[in-house]
């Protein structure tokens, strides 16, 4: 018999801690948003927003993505993960690093703790990248999804190295470029190079699998790959040499690349065999709709439209928040329901499949709670975005409150799935 994916699955002990750490961090971040709305209504280079952003990007988003990838790489590349030990080292260092960095930024302290935290994250990422590269080397599947994942991992390494360099440069200046320009370089390498590219690689395999969509045109993904990566390299170089037109061309290329990917996802959606979307896929669909907002925002910010002059700063924060919260966080929350229940279900019931009547993976979470989570998320995010765009603290705080409720429900379901006990002894 040919190997099937679950035979390559890693131990849940490797995957599950990432989900627990990640979802608790997301809960802590929503508390921080609720109590500190001013972080979102001033210039984006402020201690609280830097702290919140790094907690989100490292402690929640990257953390859960790492955990999920250890499970999904065997599905996508049809091969076992190279090293579970590497994955555990990486988890510990990433968790510690995220906390140290967030604490340092909160106190705007560019001292030893920040550099130690940054170094932890760099080493965590080196372990992760090595694991991905060695695993993919042993895979015979040379598909576009694999190339996206490898390239995303390399951009992640670039991003964290650039971040650490930026922190050192802030304390001991040696690069003659403004911190804001360098911050744009660091953040976009992370957003487009790591997060979006990784999402493209994983989702272009999994979403058609979940919706059962066949005969898709993968050329759209190839265009996306070249547009995003050539655009990003051009952007990084242009930001560094302060070449404005280079930056404009690079943004247009990356945006076109993302649109090309969105067209692929839309084609998969139209050709789906499974007509009814479940709750995890509904929240994912919401995330893709939200992604269109920052694509327009960045173009309007880039062309410096006169009518938006006074709104440049709030719209910059709105742009970042839409990507981090409206798109990536929401997509992770939705896709958790498509991955975590399967991981725990296989752990609890493997060996008894077919012999007794078993619950289904979707029975491991409370669907009503997941529906409430989705609605609260949509309302909370809308309030947050309105508050940021109009620089209104109480709206940001209200958005934070509703998001907090949504994330609390998400945490409830994550813990319910993880602590599921066998129904049939």
């Amino acid at each position, binding site marked *: 018999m*040919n190997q099937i*994916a*679950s035979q390559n699955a890693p131990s849940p002990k490797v995957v599950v801690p990432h989900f627990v750490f990640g979802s608790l961090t997301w809960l802590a971040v929503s508390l921080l948003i609720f109590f500190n709305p001013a972080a979102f209504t001033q210039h984006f280079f402020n201690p609280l927003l830097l702290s919140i952003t790094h907690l989100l990007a490292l402690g929640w988003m990257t953390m859960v993505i790492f955990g999920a990838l250890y499970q999904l790489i065997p599905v996508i590349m049809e091969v076992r993960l190279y090293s579970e030990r590497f994955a555990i080292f990486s988890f510990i260092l990433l968790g510690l690093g995220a906390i140290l960095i967030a604490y340092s930024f909160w106190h705007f302290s560019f001292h030893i703790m920040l550099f130690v935290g940054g170094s932890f994250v760099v080493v965590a990422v080196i372990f992760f990248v090595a694991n991905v590269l060695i695993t993919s080397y042993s895979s015979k599947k040379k598909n576009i999804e694999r190339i996206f994942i490898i390239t995303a991992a390399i951009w992640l390494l670039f991003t964290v190295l650039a971040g650490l360099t930026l922190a050192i440069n802030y304390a001991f200046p040696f690069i003659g470029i403004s911190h804001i320009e360098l911050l744009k370089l660091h953040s976009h390498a992370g957003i487009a190079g790591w997060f979006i590219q990784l999402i493209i690689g994983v989702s272009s395999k999994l979403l058609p699998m979940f919706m*059962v969509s*066949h005969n898709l045109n993968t050329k759209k993904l190839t265009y996306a790959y070249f547009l995003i990566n050539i655009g990003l390299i051009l952007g990084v170089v242009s930001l560094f040499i302060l070449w404005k037109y280079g930056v404009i061309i690079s943004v247009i290329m990356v945006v076109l690349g993302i649109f090309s990917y969105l067209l692929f996802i839309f084609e998969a959606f139209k050709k789906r*065999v*499974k007509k009814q979307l479940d709750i995890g896929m509904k929240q994912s669909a919401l995330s893709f709709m939200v992604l269109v907002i920052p694509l327009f925002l960045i173009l309007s910010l880039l062309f410096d439209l006169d009518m938006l002059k006074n709104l440049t700063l709030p719209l910059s924060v709105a742009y970042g928040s839409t990507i981090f919260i409206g798109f990536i966080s929401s997509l992770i929350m939705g896709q958790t329901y498509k991955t975590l229940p399967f991981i725990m279900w296989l752990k609890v019931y493997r060996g008894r*499949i077919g012999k007794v009547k078993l619950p289904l993976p*979707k029975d491991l979470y409370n669907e009503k709670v997941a529906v409430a989570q989705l609605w609260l998320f949509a309302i909370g995010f809308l309030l947050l975005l309105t508050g940021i765009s109009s620089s209104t603290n109480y709206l940001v705080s209200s958005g934070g409150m509703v998001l907090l409720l949504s994330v609390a429900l998400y945490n409830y379901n994550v813990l319910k799935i993880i602590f599921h006990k066998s129904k049939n002894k």
Partner: protein
Amino acid sequence: MNTSNEKLMALLKEVIDPELMVNIVDLGLVYGVTINEDTHKIDVNLTLTSRGCPMGDMITEDAKQVINANYPDYEAEIHLVWDPAWSIEKLTERGKEELGYF
């Protein structure tokens, strides 16, 4: 298809794809069944809607157990096949109906 094969296919309808919630026969995942009365072996050729399907284990195990429970004197073997690849055309009318395909 002879009556024993029909009986086997009816049995395999008890096996449900947990993602789509439709049985594997109406999904068109069962490519063929053969019963060998001399060797007391039952072979099932089965595919999945996509390679790397995370629930592949569950489907193949379920199919094996359903046959074992109903044919205790026979040995069931499930062969996972990828050629030809599964496509929408393999759905039965009932399968299409259950997926809301019309």
